C-alpha cells in the first residue's frame, strides 16, 4: 500500500479543495481560450467572407428587383458591433492614444478610481481596442459573459505582458460585475502580477483595489481592507520616489 502523503492530506480541507478547483477552472479556461482562439478566428473569417458574399448577392438581387429603392447599408457585414463601436469611439485616428475613462463601477461602489494612465505604461496597438471595450460597458447589464469571452480571446492573442495585464484587469472587472467573484479574483490576481512585472504601479494598485471590492462582496472585510492598504501604499511609495527624484533634480539645478 502506498504511504499516504501528510502534506496532501493536510492541504485537503473543504475550503481549500474548492479553492483549488476554482483556480484550476480559471487556469484551464485561460489555456483553452488561448488554444481555441486562432481556430475561432479562422472560422470567423470564413463566416465574414460567406456573409459578405451572400449580402452582395442579396443586395444585387434586391436592387435589380426594386430599382427605385436605394440600398442604405449592408448590415450583414457588421459582424462584431461592439468591437466596431469601440474602434469608432476612438475617433478617426487609431494611432492617438486617448486617456482611458474611469473604471466601470458597479452601482454600489463609488467611482473613485484614478483616471490617469500609469506613466510607466507604453501605448501599444491594442490600446484602442481595450479602452474602447471599457468605454462601451459602463453598466452591470452590459457586463455579459459574451463580452468576457471576447476579451479573453483578445487576451490570448496579445503578447505584451502589459497589454495582457490591462485586459486581465478589464476581464476581472466584468466578472465581478457579473457576480463571478472567484473568477474575478483569479483574473485580477493575474492582472496584478503582470502589472507588477511591467512596473505599471497604477494598474497594479487598481487591480488590488478591484480585488478588494471582490473580497468585500463576499464579506471578507479584513482581506478587503488589507488589499486597499497595499494599493494605497503602492501609490504613496511611487509618489514618494518620484518626489525624491524630482527634488534631487531641482536641487541639482539650483547649484
Amino acid at each position, binding site marked *: *500500500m*502506498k*504511504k*499516504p*502523503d*501528510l*502534506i*496532501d*492530506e*493536510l*492541504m*485537503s*480541507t*473543504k*475550503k*481549500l479543495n474548492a*479553492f*483549488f478547483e476554482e*483556480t*484550476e477552472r*480559471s*487556469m*484551464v479556461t*485561460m*489555456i*483553452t481560450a*488561448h*488554444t481555441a482562439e486562432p481556430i475561432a478566428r479562422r472560422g470567423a473569417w470564413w463566416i465574414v467572407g460567406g456573409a459578405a458574399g451572400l449580402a452582395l448577392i442579396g443586395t444585387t438581387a434586391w436592387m435589380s428587383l426594386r430599382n427605385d429603392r436605394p440600398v442604405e447599408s449592408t448590415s450583414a457585414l457588421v459582424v462584431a458591433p461592439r468591437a466596431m463601436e469601440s474602434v469608432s469611439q476612438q475617433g478617426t485616428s487609431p494611432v492617438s492614444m486617448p486617456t482611458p475613462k474611469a473604471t466601470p463601477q458597479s452601482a454600489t461602489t463609488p467611482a473613485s478610481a484614478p483616471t490617469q494612465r500609469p506613466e510607466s505604461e507604453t501605448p501599444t496597438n491594442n490600446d484602442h481596442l481595450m479602452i474602447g471595450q471599457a468605454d462601451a460597458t459602463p453598466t452591470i447589464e452590459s457586463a455579459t459573459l459574451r463580452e468576457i469571452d471576447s476579451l479573453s480571446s483578445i487576451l490570448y492573442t496579445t503578447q505584451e*505582458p502589459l497589454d*495582457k495585464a490591462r485586459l486581465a484587469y478589464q476581464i476581472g472587472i466584468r466578472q465581478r460585475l457579473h457576480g463571478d467573484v472567484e473568477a474575478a*479574483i*483569479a483574473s485580477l*490576481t*493575474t492582472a*496584478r*502580477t*503582470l502589472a*507588477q512585472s511591467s512596473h505599471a504601479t497604477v494598474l497594479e494598485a487598481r487591480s488590488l483595489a478591484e480585488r478588494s471590492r471582490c473580497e468585500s462582496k463576499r464579506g*471578507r472585510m*479584513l*482581506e478587503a*481592507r*488589507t488589499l486597499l*492598504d*497595499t494599493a494605497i*501604499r503602492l501609490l504613496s511609495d511611487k509618489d514618494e520616489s518620484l518626489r525624491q527624484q524630482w527634488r534631487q533634480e531641482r536641487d541639482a539645478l539650483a547649484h
Partner: protein
Amino acid sequence: MKDLTAETDNELFARIQSHDDAQAFRVLYGRYKRRIFAYCLQIVKDEESAKDAFQTTFAAVYEQRMSYSPGTFSAWLFTIAKRTAMRVWTDRRVTSLPTGTEPFDMEELVDEHDATEVDVYLLEALRKAINRLGPDYKEAVELRYFQGLAFEEIAQTLGISLSLAKVRVTRAKQMLQRLMNLEPDDIS
C-alpha cells in the same frame, strides 16, 4: 482522452509549451497544487495571502512557460512559488500580520534549498509542527505517515481501539493544520 498521468513533469510541460495542452496542465497542477500551497503558506503564514501567492504562481508558470528549458521542473516551479510568496509576504508585512504570527525571517529562505530538494523548507516546517504535538498524537502521525501503517496496524502497535487510532490521527492532522496556519474543517 489520452491518459497523461504516467508522463513525466517535463513531458507534460512540453505539451503545454508546444500546444497549450490544458489536460497536461491539469495533471501537473494536480501533482503540485497542495505542495505549492503548503509551501506558500509556510512563507506568508496566512491562508488568504497564501491563496494570492498560489494563484499568482500558477499564472506566472503559464505566462513564463516559454522561458523553461527542460531541467528539474519542480525546482523551477518552487523557485517561482518562493519568489511570489516572498513578494506577497513583503507586501502584507507592512499592512497587517495576523495576530500570533512572528515576522518571517527572509534570510532563512535565501539559500535554503538546491535544485533537487525543492521543498526542503516545507518539510522542515512540517517537522517542526510535528515536534510540537503531544506524544500520543506525534506517535500516531509518525506511524501513519512516515511508517505507512494502516489504522488497524496503528491500533495494534499502540494497543488502542481502531476508532481511537482514527481519532488520534484526525486530531493530530487538525492540530498540524493550525500549526501551519491553516483553518481545519469543522468536525463535530
